[in-house]
């Protein structure tokens, strides 16, 4: 229990978090590549071509993990929002604002790869499919959260407002998703969603899971980088940032000597 409390306070304090994150970054990068490379190789090269869709289905190895991540990131933000509002932990707010562009990017990648997948399959760059439409709405929600945060000058207030909006969003997301799915059934007719999970063969499943894991590490990597950057930016006038700059300068001077 003591260890947990110790780490809770460490992660909650910028002074601890910044160097800790810095040390973790090379490791996370390594893990990311460790899963990405075999995943890509198996997905793009060795996995068998789909008997229905041919080679173009391979875009699934980017599309599906990206879509999963866009939702996972949001739920992570929602948890951080609870921590930020209930326990008033500032680092949780930094985590949220750092995650928003990442989640939005995943949503955008899912949408673009969805379009690239759809074109050879159905001849259309866009279909109002339930999943794609939900993904688009999620992208707008991300952009709204970002816009709200940026509209406030005082970052303390911005963080609180952003946390509230994130939580409102997380309650609404299931409602939005199911209403879009329902709406989609009205127009379904003959359109079969290309994005339905087929009973998936193990040779296709493994690269998919590898890519999904790789993307999780990618999120963690970019998150750590962004949190460090946001911390420095927000605390630019504070003592701990000045000390880091001084230490870096001393290091450079020693290297030149």
């Amino acid at each position, binding site marked *: 229990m003591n260890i947990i409390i110790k780490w809770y306070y460490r992660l909650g304090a910028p002074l601890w978090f910044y160097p800790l994150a810095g040390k973790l970054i090379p490791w996370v990068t390594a893990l990311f590549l460790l899963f990405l490379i075999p995943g890509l190789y198996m997905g793009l090269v060795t996995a068998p071509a789909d008997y229905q869709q041919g080679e173009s289905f391979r875009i699934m190895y980017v599309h599906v993990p990206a879509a999963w991540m866009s939702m996972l990131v949001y739920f992570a933000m929602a948890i951080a929002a609870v921590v930020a509002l209930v326990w008033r932990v500032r680092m949780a707010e930094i985590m949220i604002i750092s995650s928003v562009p990442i989640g939005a990017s995943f949503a955008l990648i899912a949408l673009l790869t969805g379009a690239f997948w759809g074109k050879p399959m159905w001849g259309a760059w866009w279909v109002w499919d339930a999943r794609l439409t939900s993904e688009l709405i999620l992208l707008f929600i991300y952009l709204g959260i970002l816009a709200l945060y940026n509209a406030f*000058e*005082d970052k303390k207030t911005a963080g609180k407002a952003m946390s509230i909006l994130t939580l409102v969003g997380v309650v609404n997301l299931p409602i939005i998703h199911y209403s879009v799915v329902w709406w989609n059934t009205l127009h379904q007719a003959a359109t079969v969603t290309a994005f339905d999970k087929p009973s998936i063969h193990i040779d296709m499943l493994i690269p998919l899971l590898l890519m999904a894991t790789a993307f999780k590490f990618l999120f963690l990597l970019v998150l750590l980088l962004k949190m460090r950057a946001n911390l420095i930016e927000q605390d*630019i*006038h*504070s003592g701990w940032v000045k000390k880091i700059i001084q230490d870096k300068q001393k290091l450079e001077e020693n290297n030149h000597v």
Partner: protein
Amino acid sequence: MLFSAHKLSCIRSHKTLFQDVSFELSPGQLLLVEGKNGAGKTSLLKLLSGLRRPDSGEVKWNQVNILQAESDFRTYLAWLGHQNPLKEDQSALENLTMLGHIRPRNQVSMIEALKTLQLGHVKHKFVKTFSAGMKRRLSLASLLIAETPLWILDEPQAALDKTGITLFETLAEQHLKQGGMIVMTSHHSVNIAPKYIQTLTLGHD
């Protein structure tokens, strides 16, 4: 009843406005917060009324942190900020009625309160016809009908003429004599017996 602050600090836009601010206020006392413009007087008052959380330190009412006491503290508080919480399209009496509902009510009649602030003759006139001084006096009238021992007032004398200022000082002294407490900021001096007054100065530099 005791209103106290312990080592309050406030940071806005990366600047520390003030830190280590403490005081104790008992019934019959007035805390006058002084300081230059921008020294953080309004921010301090917002911390004291619970509108804003302090960056460190506590505000206590009867030894209980006001942020935990919530309603138990707020029933005793009347706050007046820079603005006049009045609706222009309503009359003085209508506005006073609404303000009388927001705070706990005492026995003083609204007409009486208006007359004390020399607004008896305009009780049915719309606030949009009022001068700045009249609006401020109407806001002050709302204090008279409230059963709230603690008054936290930000520049209560703003826009008041000499008569208005004297009126305010009379009301304040009466409130203190009845065992009330006042925390206020002011650019003017307050002409009340010094025995009532504690001074707190922000921003020594």
